[in-house]
């Protein structure tokens, strides 16, 4: 009966990030969500659990306000959650997140068969935590998986690479990062949401962990990305269409 861990990140919903006239980003009216790609990770863990038995454990490293995200993960079918929370965990760098996850999984969960991560977080999208975590735990990993199963005590996965697909076998325990088209995340039912807070959550505070290492990457700035374009507008009447095509021709990109 496998124990499957799904890692997820509670992220800013990028649709709410506004760009101010100054070029700075405005996060004042943002909402938060479980990262899009991490929903696939949770769904896959729950799907495997439902077919194979066992349990699915959701785990996140976040700020204490992320309790809603923990409930969301539980409503999506995780049996229990592990919530590593501190007000300083809002801007961790991938090496730090991976180190914290590795420590907690090693010391608190111990026995597991598979760890599933999304292909990347939908805020920073560094795509590092999954593979880094596998190295910290010393377990094999397969990234960018579009289909997976556990058969005969082994992981079978289809990894998507540039040239096509590789069918991979790896011993358990292992870690995978999954692509968005591996599944369609369910919409939790009302009962799932209302019962979520009845499921066990282990909350781990920073002082229960080993001292956190320094960030390997230091962020110097985050600014709105700029695209310098002429932004010329055209209407839809014949003269305007002709002017539009003429402008394209003038640039030389079409004949």
């Amino acid at each position, binding site marked *: 009966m496998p124990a499957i861990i799904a890692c997820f990140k509670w992220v800013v919903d990028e649709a709410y990030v506004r760009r101010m006239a100054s070029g700075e980003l405005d996060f004042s009216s943002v909402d938060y969500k479980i990262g899009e790609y991490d929903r696939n990770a949770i769904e896959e863990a729950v799907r495997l659990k439902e077919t194979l038995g066992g349990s699915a454990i959701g785990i996140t490293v976040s700020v204490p306000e992320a309790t809603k995200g923990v409930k969301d993960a539980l409503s999506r079918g995780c049996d229990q959650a592990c919530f590593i929370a501190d007000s300083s965990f809002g801007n961790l760098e991938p090496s730090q997140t991976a180190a914290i996850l590795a420590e907690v999984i090693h010391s608190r969960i111990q026995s597991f068969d598979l760890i599933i991560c999304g292909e990347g977080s939908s805020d920073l999208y560094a795509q590092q935590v999954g593979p880094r975590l596998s190295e910290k735990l010393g377990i094999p990993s397969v990234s960018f998986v579009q289909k997976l199963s556990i058969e005969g005590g082994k992981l079978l996965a289809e990894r998507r*690479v540039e040239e096509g697909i590789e069918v991979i076998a790896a011993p358990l325990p292992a870690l995978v990062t999954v692509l968005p088209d591996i599944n369609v995340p369910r919409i939790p039912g009302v009962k799932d949401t209302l019962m979520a807070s009845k499921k066990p959550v282990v909350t781990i505070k920073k002082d229960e962990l080993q001292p956190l290492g320094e960030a390997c990457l230091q962020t110097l700035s985050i600014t709105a990305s700029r*695209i310098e374009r002429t932004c010329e507008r055209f209407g839809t009447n014949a003269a305007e269409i002709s002017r539009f095509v003429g402008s394209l021709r003038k640039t030389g*990109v079409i004949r």
Partner: protein
Amino acid sequence: MAGIWIIAENREQTLELLRIGGELSTKTGTRLSVFLSQDRERARDYIECGADEVFILPPLTEDQSLDAYIPRIIVEAQQDVPDLILIPATARGKDMAARIAARIDTGLCSSCMALTFDDNHASFVMERLAYGGAAVQKVVCTTRPAMATIPPRTYEPADAVKGRQGQIINLPAHSPSTVKILEKKVKERESKDITESRLLVCVGRGVEKKEDVALARQLADVLHGELACTRPIAEEYHWLAEELCIGLSGAQVEPDLYLGLGVSGQVQHVTGFRNAKVIAAVNKDENAPIFKAADFGIVGDLYDVVPKLIAELKK
């Protein structure tokens, strides 16, 4: 300084990394090294394109993937700590890079799109996109080596200098990985490679029905270009093949002309073509973000505009 390393995957991207690696090694006065799987012929090619030394990794058996080299690279990196390791941001490259970074406890800038050396602080300043492409995150690595994965086509390929000399060093064998490839299925492309196309007509959600994609195709044909699409068109509606998706999680393209039809211009998508020579768009929402990213925009209903465009282009 101990040098700049490139982990090679395919030739095209290795040449691109040799371009930026060469610039930085000249600037920092260090050696440029390439780690390459088995191919001596290729090693000489890379030396002509700027590598000072090429480390040849022993051949892999059929069931082994590039990640089998990770332990060997880690041993080398721990012995002779380089200043910078560059890896292509391919599926395998991104995975390898993160795992190497974890093992040697260093920082990695994923999908780095600009890389410069700051003399004053003797550090590499790296830029990448965040928040679906809405933001640029500028980072430095506080640990050695600095690492970066670099997306395809970020740099021009390095030029070859005939007869350029360098060292070729064979590295010892490694124990095989427990992760085994059972089968490789090479993708049969349903359509042309959009990263090769000079002119792209991109279908967005403003196109209402699957049948209407034909209208976009007609326009692409008149332009002698190819069709591309936004992610929902392929992933949600399945109207076009997934390899036609442009964007953060799809293809990065740099055509001469990108023409968006009914594309709203979500940053995740715009990020995929922001380096196109000319960007044009048709959208009925005059506030659609695509217009801020476009050189030429027609505010109008694509069902009205596209037939007119086709007629005009046929003139």
